[in-house]
């Protein structure tokens, strides 16, 4: 006893929360020890008694003091209230810290709990100031004890209700405590059944609660209060009168909003709205109050904001969806709801409220139809749809309302399969009647849009037929379909033929709808009586539709440029989309498209095509590739026997055959030929993307162990197979039809097919007509795309490393040569270079990939040695060639290009061996021969971004900090050498300087920022070099100036303060560069223009970075110079000059 008293005293005196917590834990422990004694309820009850009595001293004071007296002795009273509250808090805290199972189910303990409840309950009657928070807390703890009996719950509720008016005077936190207590009580099944038993439908306690909580405004409390209300409505059965009272209590908050507060409480306005909505939709017994109330709110007209309107509509929707027994709860209000809502859509302008309204109307239709497990009487739905039909039917003939009326009808008809099956025929019939006498092209378009929407929704309903009630599928089996099938001949075809010749944009809108509609019509599927799925339209109709649309597709090619003036290709684009949709289900269709297209292409003479014809060909090929290859076709039965068995690769195969057949179009028109290879490339991209979308990016991983050699398989085919592939599939039927559309095998076989085609084209390729560079590049890129999509193992088993160098051509040495030796032979061959920059570029690209490719394996490995030999060959070649006077600068340029790119591939992966090569390159660049200058200028290639060749997609090996690495070894050692001095060869220093600048130009600022001081000195020298006494060629000097200016621009953007000490030199340098490059020189025009533009850019950036005092002395001459630069002959330079001039104008 004494111990408890001591703790209680300490608790009351303590201010720190942790200390208090500690004390309650101690007390709880003390209690636990004593109550653990078995069967000694008396002993434990004594302990509990002691514990309760420990706070007696503060309690007695309270009881002896009357409220009035307390008011007189304010100070003392406040002290009392505080300590009393703390004392009670001690009790509550102990209970909280106590193990919930300690008070075991035991008669004595039950009485104890009862007493405690009585004690704390009494506080609500007597001690409104100090006792409520602690008592509420204590009661919640007691409720969670095992000895808590349901009847005690009732007592608690009754006790708390005695607070009455004083409830709202409590702090929000105290109220929260109580709300949580109420919620736990009403959610407790035992307590709630006890409450039911005691109060029945009169729900007296509920009325007390309503009274108690009627003016709650705290959002956190409201959230719980709404939960309690929902519980009252769902779990108890209040009489209509009580229900009305409850309804009044929560509907008073509707529509609810939340004032934004500086201290976020974690509850949003949306949460509150949702909570109130849950009250509305809690039970159908609220329906008689809810619907009239909500409708009345909605019908207030303009007084309702959009947000509130949407809230009301969503609440109505929630009610409709949640109420059970729609016959009684929803049906009586439908007329009223429809009466209000139809104008929201018919005359509404705000999209949000229209959407929300549509949702409500759809919800009604779905509710009346029934659920997955239970279907309602069909008349309910019929009556509803009839109601909507009656009101909207006539609006369809009025162009102003066609869209809206159609939307309303579409919503209710297509909300359920049942509604659709019963009403779509009459719906379409009305539209058809209106289409016979359209009021305007827009009217026709809107009506067609409606038919299309019905078709689109039908596809959705059909797809989801298995999700709902089994009746739904049954309904679809027996649906009437003739009106759908006849849409083509009755609706679409007459409109199309009537308008196809007109070019008005409104008519073209109609035609677009027809095209899209035809696409949707062919995609329709139907269930026969056995439940099998097939195409709705017959093969004959599908064929007719394909032909009709193909005419439009091919038309631009058949017309001459004078006849086809139309700039608007959107109709053709829609036709393309429609055709793609069509052939996805009607797989024979692609053949019907390709045949006339191919004929039309061949009919034309391609020896000297006009630009118009070429463009038309390009577009046609691109569209055909898109139609056939951008999606994987689906397998659907048709009434006619398909020409070929289904295969997911069927369209792709057919398209490839067409391309092989068409190539070459003519020996003269290289562009036309290259378009065929471009569309081959495009179709590989399309189909690969389709596969990735369908099967996922990792779909090929499961075939990673395949060790097939496809190329060897291809060798087995007869030599003429490729060129005579016309008429037969490239993939044998038994292979093609061995996998379904969902099988990732499709992806693999697609690559196999592509590889075959690429190989076939390569075998016939050469550098003469009908081939052109453009065609070869496209073929190369297609091959690269196909090969890199293959798994590494498959690449090896197909021996692609060797094929890459022999271009798939069978040669005599093929059987013995290993890929490595073939590669080495190719790389180290200089005979095919000559001075052609093209050949050099191509070899350079191959070299870069080659030296980037092999993984850095053990130094002794054959791969590594080969790589090393390749790199050594080229650096030594350059070293020797630079001295030779036999090689002209053009050829030397080509060699350097290849050499630098080859080394660059190794630099990108930080190949250590490169470090041995760098001194050789430095030496070559410093060589006195004029070719050394070329080496110096090309040094930048080593770190040049080369994403076309080395990129992630092609599995390039690029280290993150390779530029930093290269800079360290390539540039750092040169700074000292590049500094001019009397003891140095001016030529060599100039070369070093070029080398540094050409590398840095390609590096980001962070790479060289530590050496800014030395670098800036070099830059200033480069800018101020006198033109005449330069040891460099003019071209090199200009290139150096450009590099210097580019680096300056980069520095200005990153660390302009570094330039402070060099301002005079930079201003005079850039001015000099501008003036010197302002001469007209045809051959160097581009370089000079770049110089002028960059120098103005640097000059113009200075006033933005430096204060006036640094620049003032240069202001006048610079402004004069800039003023005359505003008259520069090149527009871009003028722009730079104007901007610089405006910046300098502020320096006065």
């Amino acid at each position, binding site marked *: 006893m004494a111990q408890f008293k001591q703790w209680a005293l300490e608790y009351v005196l303590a201010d720190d929360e942790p200390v208090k917590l500690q004390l309650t834990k101690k007390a709880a422990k003390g209690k636990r020890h004593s109550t653990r004694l078995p069967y000694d309820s008396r002993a434990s009850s004594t302990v509990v008694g002691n514990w309760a009595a420990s706070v007696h001293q503060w309690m007695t004071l309270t009881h002896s003091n009357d409220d009035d007296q307390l008011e007189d002795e304010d100070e003392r009273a406040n002290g009392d209230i505080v300590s009393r509250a703390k004392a009670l808090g001690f009790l509550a805290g102990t209970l909280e810290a106590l193990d919930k199972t300690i008070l075991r189910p035991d008669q004595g303990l039950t009485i104890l709990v009862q007493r405690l409840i009585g004690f704390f309950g009494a506080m609500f009657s007597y001690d409104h100031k100090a006792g409520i928070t602690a008592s509420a807390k204590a009661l919640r703890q007691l409720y969670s004890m095992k000895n808590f009996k349901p009847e005690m719950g009732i007592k608690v509720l009754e006790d708390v209700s005695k607070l009455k008016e004083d409830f709202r005077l409590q702090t929000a936190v105290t109220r929260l405590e109580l709300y949580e207590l109420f919620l736990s009580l009403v959610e407790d099944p035992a307590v709630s059944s006890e409450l039911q038993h005691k109060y029945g439908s009169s729900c007296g306690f509920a009325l007390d609660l309503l009274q108690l909580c009627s003016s709650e405004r705290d959002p956190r409390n409201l959230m719980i209060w709404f939960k309690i209300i929902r519980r009252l409505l769902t779990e108890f059965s209040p009489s209509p009168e009580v229900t009305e009272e409850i309804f009044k209590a929560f509907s008073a908050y509707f529509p609810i909003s939340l004032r934004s507060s500086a201290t976020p409480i974690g509850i949003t306005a949306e949460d509150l709205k949702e909570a109130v909505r849950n009250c509305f939709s809690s039970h159908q017994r609220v329906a008689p109050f809810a619907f009239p109330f909500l409708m009345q709110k909605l019908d207030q007209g303009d007084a309702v904001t959009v947000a509130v309107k949407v809230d009301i509509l969503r609440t109505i929707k929630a009610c409709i969806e949640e109420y059970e027994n729609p016959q009684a709860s929803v049906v009586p209000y439908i007329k009223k709801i429809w009466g209000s809502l139809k104008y929201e859509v018919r005359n509404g302008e705000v999209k949000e409220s229209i959407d929300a309204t549509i949702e409500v109307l759809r919800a009604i239709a779905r509710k009346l139809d029934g659920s997955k497990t239970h279907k309602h009487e069909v008349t309910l739905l019929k009556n509803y749809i009839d109601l909507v039909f009656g009101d909207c039917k006539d609006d369809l003939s009025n162009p102003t309302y066609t869209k809206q009326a159609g939307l309303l009808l579409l919503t209710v008809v297509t909300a359920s399969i049942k509604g659709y099956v019963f009403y779509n025929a009459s719906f379409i019939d009305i539209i058809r009647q209106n289409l016979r006498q359209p009021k305007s092209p827009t009217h026709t378009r809107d009506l067609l849009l409606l038919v299309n929407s019905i078709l689109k929704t039908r596809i959705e309903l059909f797809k989801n037929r298995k999700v709902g009630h089994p009746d739904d599928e049954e309904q679809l089996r027996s649906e009437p379909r003739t009106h759908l099938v006849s849409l083509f001949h009755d609706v679409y075809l007459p409109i199309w033929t009537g308008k196809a010749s007109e070019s008005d944009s409104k008519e073209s809108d109609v035609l677009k709808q027809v095209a899209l509609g035809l696409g949707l019509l062919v995609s329709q599927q139907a269930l026969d009586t056995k439940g099998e799925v097939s195409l709705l339209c017959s093969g004959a109709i599908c064929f007719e539709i394909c032909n009709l649309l193909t005419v439009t597709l091919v038309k631009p090619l058949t017309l001459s440029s004078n006849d086809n003036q139309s700039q608007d290709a959107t109709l053709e684009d829609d036709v393309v989309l429609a055709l793609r949709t069509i052939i996805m289900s009607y797989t024979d269709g692609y053949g019907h498209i390709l045949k006339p297209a191919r004929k039309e292409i061949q009919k034309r003479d391609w020896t000297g095509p006009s630009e118009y014809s070429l463009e038309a060909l390009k577009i046609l090929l*691109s569209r055909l590739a898109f139609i056939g290859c951008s999606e994987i076709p689906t397998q659907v039965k048709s009434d006619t026997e398909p020409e070929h068995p289904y295969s997911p690769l069927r369209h792709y195969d057919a398209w490839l055959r067409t391309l092989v057949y068409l190539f070459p179009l003519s020996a003269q028109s290289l562009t036309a030929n290259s378009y065929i290879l471009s569309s081959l490339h495009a179709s590989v*991209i399309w189909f690969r993307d389709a596969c990735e979308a369908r099967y996922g990016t990792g779909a090929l991983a499961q075939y990673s162990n395949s060790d097939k050699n496809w190329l060897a398989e291809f060798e087995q085919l007869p030599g003429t197979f490729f060129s005579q592939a016309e008429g037969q599939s490239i993939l044998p039927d038994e292979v093609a039809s061995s996998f379904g559309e969902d099988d990732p095998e499709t992806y693999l076989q697609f690559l196999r097919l592509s590889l075959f085609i690429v190989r076939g084209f390569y075998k016939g390729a050469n550098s003469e007509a009908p081939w052109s560079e453009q065609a070869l590049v496209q073929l190369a890129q297609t091959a690269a795309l196909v090969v890199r999509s293959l798994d590494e193992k498959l690449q090896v088993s197909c021996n692609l490393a060797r094929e890459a160098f022999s271009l798939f051509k069978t040669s005599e040495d093929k059987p013995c040569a290993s890929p490595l030796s073939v590669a080495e032979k190719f790389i180290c061959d200089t005979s095919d270079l000559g001075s052609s920059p093209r050949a050099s570029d191509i070899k350079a690209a191959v070299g870069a990939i080659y030296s980037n490719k092999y993984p850095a394996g053990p130094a002794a490995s054959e791969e590594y040695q080969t790589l090393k030999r390749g790199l050594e060959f080229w650096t030594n070649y350059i070293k020797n060639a630079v001295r030779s006077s036999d090689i002209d600068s053009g050829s030397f340029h080509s060699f350097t290009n290849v050499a630098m790119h080859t080394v660059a591939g190794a630099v990108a992966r930080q190949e250590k061996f490169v470090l041995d090569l760098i001194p050789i390159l430095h030496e070559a660049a410093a060589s006195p021969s004029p070719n050394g200058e070329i080496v110096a200028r090309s040094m930048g290639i080593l770190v040049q971004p080369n994403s076309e060749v080395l990129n992630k997609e092609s599995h390039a090996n690029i280290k993150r900090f390779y530029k930093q690495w290269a800079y360290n070894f390539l540039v750092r050692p040169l700074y000292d050498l590049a500094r001019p001095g009397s003891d140095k060869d001016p030529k060599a220093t100039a070369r070093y300087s070029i080398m540094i600048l050409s590398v840095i130009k390609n590096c980001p600022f962070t790479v060289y920022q530590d050496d800014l001081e030395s670098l800036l000195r070099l830059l200033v020298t480069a800018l101020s070099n006198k033109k005449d006494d330069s040891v460099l060629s003019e071209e090199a000097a200009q290139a150096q100036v450009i590099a210097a200016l580019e680096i300056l621009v980069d520095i200005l953007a990153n660390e302009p303060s570094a330039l402070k000490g060099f301002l005079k030199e930079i201003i005079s340098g850039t001015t000099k560069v501008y003036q010197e490059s302002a001469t007209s020189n045809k051959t160097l025009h581009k370089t000079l223009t770049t110089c002028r533009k960059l120098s103005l850019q640097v000059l113009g950036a200075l006033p933005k970075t430096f204060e006036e005092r640094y620049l003032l002395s240069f202001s006048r001459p610079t402004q004069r110079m800039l003023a005359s630069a505003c008259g520069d002959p090149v527009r871009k330079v003028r722009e730079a000059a104007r901007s610089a*001039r405006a910046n300098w104008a502020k320096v006065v």
Partner: protein
Amino acid sequence: MREVDNANPSILNVSQLPSRSRKVTTPRQGPDSKCDNIVYSKRPWLCGSSSSEDEDLEEEYGEDPVDAQDIYDLISPISDPEHPHTLGQLSVVQLPDIHLTPPPAERRGDKLVTVTVDLTPTVNHCSLATVIGLAVRYRLEQTLPPNYRFDVRMKDGSHAQDDQVNKQLGDKERVAAALENDTLKGMLDKMLETCV
């Protein structure tokens, strides 16, 4: 605030203004054109010494002496002092009313070039015509080289007092004096804020 002289001027859309860039054709935007820039690339092979930007630079760096469109581009973005629109949008500045002598094709070296700009106020009693004229003149002086001379006038008959306004705008001393006036200078700066 003073009542505006023309409360309801007709305004041109930005896309309706004459510009040089319109001459470029836009690429086709069909559903099938996703890979067009890969498979019909102008520069199919982007590796190596022959710089890839050559063709673009060629177009951009071609010689193009200052012409009427250039002048139009300089002065049409000036804001109107009354309306939140530019002089181009309000058709105060019109391309056919800008003349250069000698015309661009006949120009040689640093010879004098005279730029004549005829302005059309939105109403013929516009009280701010002088300010607008001054802004145009000021902008041209700021952005063209010293061998250019300017003649900014009201178009014949477009303003009730065009003679007076033209006289003011033609008088160098008065123009210089006007630019010394802080209030007027502040107004001009505000009008020129929209010029880039």
